C-alpha cells in the first residue's frame, strides 16, 4: 500500500517532467514568435479541447488520489469506519503532552489521534527518523482535531508541531512518540538504528 514516500516520489517525477515540458514550450514559443509566419489563430475547436483538457486535469487529480492514495477515502468516509484505538494528546504552552508515551500501534488498524489545544493554533505532524512527513493535521483551539490513520510498515515515528505558534513553538517535538509493529514490512526511513538524520 502506498505511503507518503511513494506518493511524493511520484509527485517529484511527474512535476519535474511537467516543468521541463513547460520550460521547453515557452522556449520554443520564444524562438518561433520572432520568426515570420502565418497570422492565423488556432481553430476554436483547439481552444475548447484545451479547456476540456484543463478541466479533466484539474478535477481528474482528485479522482485519481481518491482511488490511489489510501488516506483520502479514510478521511472522507471516516464517520462510517470503526476506530480500533484512540490516542490522546494535549498541546499547551508550546508542549506536546501525550496521555501515554510512546504509543504502540498495531499494523493495519485504523487508529485515531485526538488532539486538544488549550491555548494556540498548532499542528500535529507524524515524521520518520529521516524527517520526511507521514501525515499531519492542524490543531485549532476550541475545535475538533482528530486524525484517523492506518500504518502499514513497522517503525518509530516522532511528532512535531507543523504550525507556527510563535517563536517558542518553532521546535515542538515529541521524540519516539509512535511505535508501529506487527507489519511484514519495515519503514526503512523510520527505523530507530542510527537515530534521526
Amino acid at each position, binding site marked *: 500500500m502506498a505511503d507518503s514516500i511513494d506518493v511524493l516520489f511520484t509527485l*517529484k517525477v511527474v512535476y519535474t517532467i511537467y516543468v521541463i515540458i513547460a520550460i521547453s*514550450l515557452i522556449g520554443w514559443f*520564444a524562438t518561433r514568435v520572432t520568426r515570420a509566419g502565418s497570422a492565423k489563430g488556432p481553430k476554436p475547436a483547439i481552444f475548447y479541447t484545451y479547456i476540456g483538457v484543463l478541466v479533466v486535469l484539474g478535477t481528474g487529480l482528485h479522482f485519481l488520489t481518491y482511488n490511489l492514495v489510501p488516506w483520502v477515502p479514510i478521511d472522507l468516509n471516516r464517520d462510517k469506519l470503526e476506530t480500533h484505538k484512540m490516542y490522546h494528546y494535549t498541546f499547551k504552552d508550546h508542549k506536546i503532552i501525550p496521555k501515554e508515551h510512546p504509543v504502540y500501534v498495531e499494523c493495519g488498524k485504523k487508529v485515531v489521534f485526538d488532539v486538544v489545544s488549550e491555548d494556540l*493554533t498548532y499542528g500535529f505532524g507524524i515524521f520518520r527518523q529521516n524527517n520526511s512527513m507521514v501525515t499531519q493535521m492542524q490543531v485549532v483551539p476550541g475545535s475538533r482535531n482528530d486524525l484517523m490513520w492506518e500504518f502499514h510498515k513497522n517503525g518509530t515515528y516522532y511528532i512535531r508541531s507543523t504550525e507556527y505558534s510563535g517563536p517558542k513553538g518553532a521546535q515542538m517535538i515529541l521524540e519516539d512518540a509512535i511505535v508501529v509493529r506487527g507489519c511484514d514490512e519495515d519503514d526503512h526511513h523510520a527505523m530507530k538504528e542510527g537515530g534521526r538524520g
Partner: protein
Amino acid sequence: MSFMQKLMEGHEGGLRHETMTPLQKIAMRFVVIGLLYYGLASLEGMLMRAWEIKPLPFIDETHFFSIMTVHPMVGIFGSSYMIVFGAFLFLVSYLMKKPIYSIKMANLSWMTIAGGTLIMWLAGFLFSYAPLYTLYWPLPVDMEQFSAIGGIVYIVGVVGIMIGTFLFTYNVFKTILYTPEGWEKQPSGDLLKSALGLEGLLNFFRREKKEHLVPLPIAAISRGTIDMGLNAIVISSAGVLILIYMVGTVFGAELKGTWVDALLYKNIFWWGLDLIADGLVLIFVAGTWYLLAMIISGKDLFMQNIARAALFVEMVVSWTVWSHHLMSDQGQSNTLKVLSGEVVTAFELVTQGIAVFITLVTLYRARPLKMTNELKFLLGGILGFMLAVPAGIIQADLGMNRILHNTQWVIGTHVHVAILVGLTMTLYSAIYTLFPILTNGAKLYSQKLADIHFWLHLIGGIGMGAFMGMAGMDGMLRRAIYTNGEYNTYMILAGICGMMIMVAFVIFLYNIIMSIGIKGLIGIYKPAVIDTREPLPAEKES
C-alpha cells in the same frame, strides 16, 4: 561624460521631470517606492535563506520570525501593491482617455501605503512582533510572546495600508464612472456594468452583441479592484479585532480566550486573504498580460469575449475558493473541503490556462516580433504561473494536502514561483513597457544589463522554488527551525538561487538609476510644473 555626471544626469539627458504631468509623477512615485520595498523584501528573504543554512549570530529566533512576519507584507503591500497601483492609476486614465478623478487622493494613496508599510515593518524590527501574516487566532494577541505595543504599531501600519487601498479603489472606480468638467454626461451605470463584466456575461446570451464601453484591461483592473476592496474590509476588521484585544491588555483587561472562535476566524480571514492570493493577483495578472500582449503585438486580443468572461469567472472563483487553506483542519466540513477546496480551486487552472492561451496566441499572430525586454519578461511571467498554478492545484487536493501542507513545497514551488517569477516578471514587463511612456521617452542605459537581469532573475526564481519544493517533499516545514543541518544541501542551493535574484535586482536598479539619473529620480518627488489631471503632457497627446 564621466560616470558621476551620468549618474547625476542620467543616460542621454535622463529623466526631464519638469516635462512630466502630476499623474506621471504619481505613477513613478508609486513604482520607485515599490521597487525599494522589493529590495527590502529581497534582503529579508536572503537573511532568512542564510539563516536556514546556519543561524546568523545577530538574529535570534524571535527576530527571525519577525522577519518572516513582515517579509510577505513588505513584498505584497509595500512592493507589489505599490507598483500595481501606480501603473493602474495611470493606465485607467490613459486607456479611458479621461483625466484622473483626484490627484490629491492618488498622492495620499501612495503616502499612506508607503508609510503604513514602514510602520508595520517597524513593529517587527523594533518590537519583534511576529504572529506571521496568517495571524491565526489567538496568536496575534498572545501577550506572553509579544508586546502589546508591538501589536498596536503593527495594526496601525496595516490600517495605513488599507486606507491607501480604499483610496485607490475609490479613485479607480470614480475615474471610470465620473463625468469630467465640460464633458458630455457619462453613462455611469453602463460603464459600471461593462467594467464589472456583466455586459460581457450578458453578451454570451445575446444574438446581437453589445459593444464594450471599457477596454479589456480596465475590466480586469475593475474586477481585481473589487476583490482588493473586499480584502481591505476583511483585513481592517481583523485589525480592529486585534487592536481591541491589544488596547484591552494595555488597560489591564485580559480578553484572551473570549469571544473569538479560532476556526471561524480562520475561515473568514482566509476568505479575505484569498481575495488577494487567488483573486486580484490572478485577475490583475491576466489583465496585465492582455494589455501587454496588445501593446507588444499591436493587435486586438484573440478571443476577447472569452477573456472577459474568464475574468468574471475568476472573480467568482476567488470568492469561493478559500477552503483549500483549511483542508488539514479536521473541524472544517468535508463538503467545503471538496467543493471549495478542491473543485473550485481546480477552476483556477482553467481561468489561468485561458489567460495563458489567449496571451500567447495574440502574440503568435503578430509574428515576427522582436525579443524586447517587454516580451521576454512577459514570457517569463507566463512561465512562472504555468509552473506555480499547477503546484497550487496539486496541494489543494485532500490526499496531497495531508503530506504537503505547511511544508516548503507550498511556499517555494507554489508561492515564491508565482510571486517572484510569475508576478514580478510580469511587473518588470509592465515597467519596461511603461518606462518610456511615464518618462516621456527616457532611454534605457544598458540593454546588456537588462539581459543579465532577466536571466539571473528567471533562473534564480525557478531554482529557488525548485530547491525549496524538494526540501518540502522531504518533510521540511515552512515555519519551523532546523539547527542540525537537516536540509542544508537544498538550503544552500536555494540560497545561491536567492542570491541570483537579489543580484538581478541590484543590476536592474542600477540600470534604471543610470537611465533616469539621480536628479531625475529626486525630481519625481518634486511638485509637478504642469497643472493637469490628464495622464500625458498636452504636446505628447497630440
